[in-house]
């Protein structure tokens, strides 16, 4: 019998126990499956539970490890994958009714790489339909129902990697894989009080993943510590001939993240946000953010107030995502199945965007280049950006999300338009004991530095160790 707190251990801790044979991958997998049966329906966290696959992979891992063939830190660790990553012979719904019966015949590269690392697939995790790329206004815009937050199931998990956020926070998986076009890794990480890492665009192959917006989609880990994010990212990174946009920057550059202590000479820019004047901003979130900044400064990190380049990054990112997504999902407009989506406005996106011309899209591409230049210049002065993730805690699942989250995303446009990596770190609790979070965004391929800062922060705080009491 495994004690409940074991399900909340980090990947690093689980891996150590598995490697030293103090913990059986089969028992751990069975334990997570039992928890999934008990808790996942309360959270709408899973689209499909792959019990047979999981037990088979766990038994294989146990046999191999028993023979001394330990593959590495993910060997025997159970995980869940967002339901837009193809899994051979396993239903892959993309969170949407028009695609609810898809059964791919090939694994996504990420799924294959995780299998090669010995990780155990517990199931496919719920998500916002089509990863929200056609827009969504309500938490229930998902085939699996609204993502319910383990800290309060009447509140939203965030999206679009909703099930990934819930499953990690509720101790239903050892770690989860999510994706982000704009906010879909950082948002559920923030609202569910877990650690998430949005990698640099191109760091992780997207072959076999649903395309939302070609030049924005990223795949990354949601886990229980910064160290875990690195372990997972190392296993899924690298150039893939099946994804022409995957980068050939060596995976070994991530190794710097294994080192202890702050990255030498790292200079962080603090982007001040006006909580007092921002509609919907909550003072408790500011208090938690100020506390995190003070903690990092006390640890020796250089943080100074700075201003981001004055540039309409959100407009550029928003327009390009809209154009790319409308092209991606064109088929569903053509055959009328877009009307099966749960979001009442998504079917009208094409009509709403009718005024968007080809010249506008090309102009946005040219502006994106200007923004990249400005950010290259910015990163000559600073190595990273520290800012709150959201200015309020997770909203109710019952309301209009645009009304519940009325403020703009301060760095999301820049971060996603430029393909920058960012790590979300839990930093306290706000209203009604809901988690708060902040992020550190870096320059391309500097995930190692972000992880090092995250590890230092998490060695001095316990927020990442807190669990929702209902699921303890």
């Amino acid at each position, binding site marked *: 019998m495994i004690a409940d707190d074991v399900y909340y251990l980090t990947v690093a801790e689980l891996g150590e126990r598995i490697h030293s044979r103090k913990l059986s991958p089969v028992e751990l997998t069975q334990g997570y499956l039992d928890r999934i049966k008990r808790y996942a329906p309360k959270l709408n966290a899973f689209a499909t539970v792959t019990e047979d696959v999981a037990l088979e992979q766990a038994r294989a891992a146990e046999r191999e490890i028993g023979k001394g063939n330990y593959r590495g830190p993910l060997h025997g660790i159970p995980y869940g994958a967002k339901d837009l990553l193809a899994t051979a012979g396993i239903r892959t719904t993309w969170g949407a009714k028009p695609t609810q019966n898809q059964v791919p015949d090939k694994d996504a590269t990420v799924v294959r790489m995780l299998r090669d690392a010995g990780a155990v697939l517990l199931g496919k995790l719920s998500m916002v339909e089509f990863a929200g790329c056609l*827009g969504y*206004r309500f938490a229930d815009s998902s085939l699996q129902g609204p993502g319910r937050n383990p800290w*309060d199931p*009447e*509140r939203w998990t965030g999206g679009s990697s909703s099930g990934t956020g819930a499953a990690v926070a509720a101790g239903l998986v050892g770690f989860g894989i999510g994706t982000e076009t704009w906010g879909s890794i950082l948002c559920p990480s923030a609202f569910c009080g877990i650690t998430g890492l949005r990698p640099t665009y191109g760091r992780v192959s997207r072959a076999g993943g649903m395309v939302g917006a070609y*030049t924005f989609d990223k795949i990354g880990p949601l886990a229980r510590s910064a160290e875990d994010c690195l372990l997972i990212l190392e296993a899924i990174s690298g150039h893939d001939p099946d994804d022409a946009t995957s980068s050939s920057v060596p995976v070994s550059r991530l190794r710097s993240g294994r080192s202890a202590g702050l990255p030498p000479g790292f200079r962080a820019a603090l982007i001040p946000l006006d909580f007092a004047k921002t509609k919907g901003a909550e003072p408790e979130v500011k208090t938690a953010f100020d506390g995190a900044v003070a903690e990092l400064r006390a640890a020796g990190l250089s943080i100074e107030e700075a201003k981001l380049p004055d540039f*309409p990054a959100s*407009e*550029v990112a*928003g*327009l390009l995502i*809209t154009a790319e997504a409308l092209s991606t999902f064109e088929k569903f*407009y*053509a*055959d*009328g*199945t877009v*009307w*099966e989506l749960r979001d*009442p*406005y998504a*079917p*009208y996106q094409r*009509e*709403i*965007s009718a*005024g*968007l011309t080809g010249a*506008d899209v*090309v*102009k*946005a*591409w*040219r*502006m*994106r*280049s*200007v*923004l*990249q230049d400005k950010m290259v210049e910015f990163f000559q002065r600073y190595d990273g950006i520290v800012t709150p993730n959201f200015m309020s805690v997770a909203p*109710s699942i*019952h*309301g*209009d999300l645009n*009304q519940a989250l009325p403020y703009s995303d301060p760095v999301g446009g820049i971060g996603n338009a430029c393909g920058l990596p960012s790590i979300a770190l839990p930093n306290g609790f706000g209203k009604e004991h809901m988690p708060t979070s902040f992020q550190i965004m870096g320059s391309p391929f500097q995930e190692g530095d972000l992880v090092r800062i995250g590890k230092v922060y998490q060695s001095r705080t316990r927020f990442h160790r807190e669990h929702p009491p209902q699921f303890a």
Partner: protein
Amino acid sequence: MSKPTPRMKRRRFVTLAALSGAALLTSPLSRAMAAVERARSPVEGRRRAASPAIRKEIATQEKSLRDQLKVIRGYDLPPGSPMAFAFEPRIAARKRGES
């Protein structure tokens, strides 16, 4: 536990109203007619009539796009400024002399 918002109540009401309306349309003849309609024009057959609330939101989103476009179109760039991606011709693998 938070209470449903008034907006949600309204949405539920609209859903219930739609369902009760749908009940009137479930006779075999009307179902057959609906199937014929769908086959004739798949897109239009599935299309839901936009409620005033949805029309209002569409107008809001259209305005938001117009605002975005105003910013994009108004941004000054020199002719020929670079794009954020580079097109690369693909090299064929064929060797000369092979058929």
